[in-house]
């Protein structure tokens, strides 16, 4: 494993850790963006250029921004947090997560000998991806489009201001 791999990995993991442990929510959002970036670089290392750029565009460019919006909209500046950022029963959660990691790690190491190891990356061009999207994967594409539309409408409705709902406006 090359040095680049380790460096990027360290960055990603650090970013993730920071995201879940920092007190300030905005710092967490920024940290998770760093993690997303690290992941994008990992994708690039894996010769998945389209996935890597899609990751940057969507996750860092949209999801992280969304998260920041949400954080800003749900600020309770007047009420300080009681009891800290972690739940009262944080240990149980940590144990469960550790157990999950253990199992997954065990699965990987147990089957490490049988893992494939192709030398060459699959030769995939963006044109091919485009053609596949419009050809073989047109149905999933359309469904995803529908999904995105409904998510859009749903999110708008869900987050609409209460004043509109009180007036009994049509949903």
């Amino acid at each position: 494993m090359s040095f680049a791999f380790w460096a990027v990995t360290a960055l990603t993991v650090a970013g993730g850790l920071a995201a879940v442990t920092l007190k300030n929510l905005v710092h967490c959002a920024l940290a998770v963006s760093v993690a997303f970036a690290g992941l994008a670089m990992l994708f690039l290392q894996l010769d998945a250029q389209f996935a890597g750029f899609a990751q940057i565009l969507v996750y860092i460019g949209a999801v992280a921004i969304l998260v920041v919006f949400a954080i800003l909209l749900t600020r309770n500046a007047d009420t300080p947090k009681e009891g800290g950022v972690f739940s009262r029963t944080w240990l149980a959660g940590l144990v469960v997560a550790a157990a999950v990691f253990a199992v997954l790690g065990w699965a990987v190491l147990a089957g490490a000998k049988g893992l494939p190891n192709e030398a060459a990356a699959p030769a995939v061009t963006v044109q091919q991806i485009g053609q596949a999207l419009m050809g073989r994967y047109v149905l999933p594409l359309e469904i995803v489009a529908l999904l995105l539309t409904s998510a859009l409408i749903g999110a708008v409705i869900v987050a609409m201001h209460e004043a509109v709902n009180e007036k009994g406006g049509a949903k």
Partner: protein
Amino acid sequence: MSPLAGYLLVAALLFAIGLAGALTRRNAILVLIGIELMLNAANLNLIAFWRYGPHPEALTGMMFAIFSIAVAAAEAAVGLGLVIQVHRHAKTTDLDQMNRMKG
């Protein structure tokens, strides 16, 4: 250790971190962040297998990952919308206090 195993372990680590965050943090938005991390870890798994595994179908892994990204985006949007609405009602995003569905 093969490169694939390394990537898989990284994905597992990221997944565990994301899960830990989702399970231990009080703020609802941080739970969503944790969920996004988990999804990303899964994507990494997919791409790793796409690169190192046999590929009679050259595009499958990539497609899977792309669609996963799209869906994750949609889900984040709706989820955050919900969090905002809950915040309006309960005046808080503290998950420890949200136990109205108690059995």
